[in-house]
């Protein structure tokens, strides 16, 4: 046998593997307007940087070998904006990208390399679940799911997942383990399909209701961003990664500061009413503080009374946790608590300094919150906050009441606390506290009410907090950007090369 024969065989096998599930299935996808698994990789990675791992892998079952090019999960390495990444792209045209013995080994290899060599791992998800017959019977138990670390997350490097079709089994599980999940409208994520679920509970189930984008972006909070197309999902992944280090032992990358960054804070006085009874959209304040065009909000439809975003300040990645009075007056509900905790865990794991923008009337009290274990959510957040080792700066813009004062970085829970002159440090809305403390209502005894109101609001100003050195500075709101830039510079962890201790790196990826 000559080398030519061997080379011809190589070329033929390569062609067969790259042909995926065959022209018919690929054409059907194209007709539906969806990219296939290899096209997605092409769009994701820098040109000519892709190196495949396991192109010639197939099902371990001899009878299925011909039908399983790359065994339905395409894996490899490449670069995004010059930085290395590992990627797993699910190929629905090959046995529904079901999980098998061999493709499980491919995913494990990607995980191990990403973790060891320090590069983000990206899952382009779409899958039907465990493959039959691989998973059948006792023998299936003995060959699939043989890696006890399969669902272990220590956040050595960022994991990102895109939900780009029907996601059951591995695409769902890896999304739930990822730091960031983007979902295309029309994609589905659930434990089981609507067909299976419908049979199990013996009633019709609507697929969108079971696992659609509204459910996951508004109710479960499992999805961070929603987009309309595969292309947008991939763009979102690239943008997200631009804020992050490649792994946990380096600082996030710095970017050039765009023109027009200075003087943006002038707008703040027009955005935030001095009267605490009026609300506003805090995201406009975040825009006014951040480098132009650098705000990347996560979970914008979930726990909306608290907005979380990645921004750049003077070219450096910073995380912002901001109360948003536009929704629920900024009162912090259970969803907002979970959102805050997961964001703290993520930021600390990847060395991203945290800024709190504070304007909240307290935790949202009520039956619903108690039923959903609100006390434990509040204290989970405090526990996480106490374990954060990246720099933290808290800006008290207007009200900061009750226990939530501490959750939002007050007291010694930030490295630096800055107040605007409009800061109000009561323990609850003063008008309410007169009633709660003294049982006096305005309409019943207006004179006494006014007297008591004066009493409860006497000591709640920024000046009193500053006099006690519980806030290190009181600033003109228009100077917030500049103040944050200098304070984050002061608190940069120089001795640790801007790398934190990651005491939260094994905390859950969802709550």
């Amino acid at each position, binding site marked *: 046998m000559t080398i030519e024969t061997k080379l011809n065989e190589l070329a033929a096998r390569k062609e067969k593997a790259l042909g995926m599930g065959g022209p018919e299935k690929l054409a059907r996808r194209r007709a539906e307007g969806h990219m296939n698994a290899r096209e997605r990789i092409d769009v994701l990675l820098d040109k000519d940087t892709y190196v495949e791992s396991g192109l010639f892998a197939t099902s371990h079952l001899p009878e299925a070998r011909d039908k399983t090019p790359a065994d339905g999960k395409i894996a490899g390495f490449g670069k995004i904006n010059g930085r290395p990444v590992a990627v797993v792209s699910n190929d629905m045209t090959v046995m529904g990208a079901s999980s098998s013995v061999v493709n499980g080994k491919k995913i494990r290899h990607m995980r191990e390399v990403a973790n060891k060599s320090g590069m983000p791992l990206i899952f382009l998800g779409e899958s039907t679940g465990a493959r039959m017959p691989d998973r059948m019977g006792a023998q299936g138990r003995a060959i699939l799911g043989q890696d006890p670390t399969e669902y272990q997350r220590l956040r050595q490097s960022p994991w990102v997942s895109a939900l780009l079709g029907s996601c059951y089994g591995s695409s769902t599980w890896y999304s739930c383990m990822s730091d960031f999940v983007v979902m295309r409208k029309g994609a589905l994520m659930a434990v089981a399909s609507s067909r299976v679920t419908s049979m199990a509970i013996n009633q019709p189930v609507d697929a969108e209701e079971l696992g659609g984008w509204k459910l996951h972006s508004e109710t479960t909070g499992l999805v961070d961003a929603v987009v309309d197309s595969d292309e947008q999902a991939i763009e979102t992944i690239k943008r997200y990664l631009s804020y992050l280090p490649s792994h946990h032992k380096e600082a996030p990358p710095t970017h050039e500061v765009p023109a027009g960054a200075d003087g943006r804070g002038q707008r703040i006085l027009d955005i935030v009413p001095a009267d*605490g*009874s009026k*609300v506003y959209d805090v995201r406009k304040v975040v825009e006014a503080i951040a480098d132009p065009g650098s705000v990347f909000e996560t979970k914008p439809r979930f726990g909306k009374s608290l907005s979380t975003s990645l921004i750049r300040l003077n070219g450096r990645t910073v995380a912002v946790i901001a109360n948003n*009075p536009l929704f*629920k*007056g900024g009162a912090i509900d259970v969803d907002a608590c979970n959102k805050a905790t997961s964001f703290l865990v993520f930021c600390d794991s990847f060395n991203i300094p945290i800024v709190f923008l504070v304007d909240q009337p307290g935790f949202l009290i*009520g039956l*619903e919150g108690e039923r959903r274990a609100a006390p434990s959510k509040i204290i989970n957040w405090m526990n996480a906050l106490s374990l954060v080792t990246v720099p933290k700066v808290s800006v008290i813009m207007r009200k900061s009441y009750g226990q939530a004062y501490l959750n939002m970085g007050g007291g010694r829970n930030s490295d630096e606390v800055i107040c605007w002159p409009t800061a109000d440090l009561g323990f609850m*809305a003063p008008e309410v506290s007169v009633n709660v403390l003294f049982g006096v209502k305005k309409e019943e005894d207006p004179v006494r009410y006014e007297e008591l109101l004066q009493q409860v609001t006497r000591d709640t100003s920024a000046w009193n907090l500053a006099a006690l050195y519980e806030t290190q500075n009181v600033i003109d709101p228009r100077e917030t950007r500049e103040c944050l830039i200098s304070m984050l510079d002061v608190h940069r962890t120089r001795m640790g090369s801007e790398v934190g201790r990651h005491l939260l790196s094994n905390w859950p990826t969802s709550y």
Partner: protein
Amino acid sequence: MADTKVISEVTGSIWKVLVAVGDSVEADTPVILVESMKMEIPVLAPDAGVVAEVLVAVGDPVSEGQAVITLKT
């Protein structure tokens, strides 16, 4: 055209009704102000549409999750 219920996200009392039957509204337009926790908290239209019904009056108590407006969307 579908009927969309516009929901108050907070418990409180109706402070102001900002629209009338027949008004066209854009998505995210405030349609009602609820007084809650000593703040004027807006109820925002979830989608663009035309106000078909105003279900509350100034001073009415309102609970979290209660519909305050019906929109034709």
